[in-house]
């Protein structure tokens, strides 16, 4: 399915763009993480969180086509 990865914070700098559309085979959060790490060394070397529909997704959480937020560690406050 097609996902629009939306980068935040230092990840915008790291990838040199705020977002990109990619096509993936994954259907869960964990398999997407692995697919991204296999795709690009920058994912393997970064700590990142994934979110869809304004919720952090992990493990077996189901992916849906559309926007995925890709977050570096939070540093508000």
């Amino acid at each position: 399915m097609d996902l629009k990865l939306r980068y935040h914070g230092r990840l915008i700098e790291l990838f040199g763009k705020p977002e990109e559309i990619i096509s993936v085979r994954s259907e869960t959060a964990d398999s997407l993480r692995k697919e991204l790490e296999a795709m690009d060394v920058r994912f393997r070397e970064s700590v990142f969180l994934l979110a869809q529909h304004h919720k952090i997704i992990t493990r077996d959480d189901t992916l849906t086509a559309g926007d995925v937020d890709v977050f570096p560690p939070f540093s508000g406050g």
Partner: protein
Amino acid sequence: MKNKKIKNIFIEGGIPPEKIAQSISNHKSKTGIGAHDIFLGQVRADKIGNKMVGAIEFSAQEEMANEVCHEIREAVFDKFPVNCLHIYHSLGKVVVGEICFFVFVSSGHRDEVFESMPFLVNEIKAKVPIFGKEIFEDETHQWKINK
């Protein structure tokens, strides 16, 4: 009290002390309140190597941040007998010495505000998608990491 409406926590730039005064004044008519606790984050001139932080530039996933703050607020109301609770955070550039984070808890008595405030501040730091970029005086930068 509980409120279904999702509030916008963001303020462009540093949070003016006058806004904090106004917020305190707004609680004058809430006569069941006996204790307020206000936590403020101020941008610190940290020295990293031989460079000095001059400002922090904040960005956020704003919609998600507002929703997560709403959930944290509901959780605090469930867990502690507090009357009132407000959260504000800066977006964009905030220079050293200015306030970038403002959390306000009110209750009948002091124990409840002392218990709920650290919980609330720690939840926000851990769960809200906000990102700080520390800008040095020579215009280079590094990304802020929360302890």
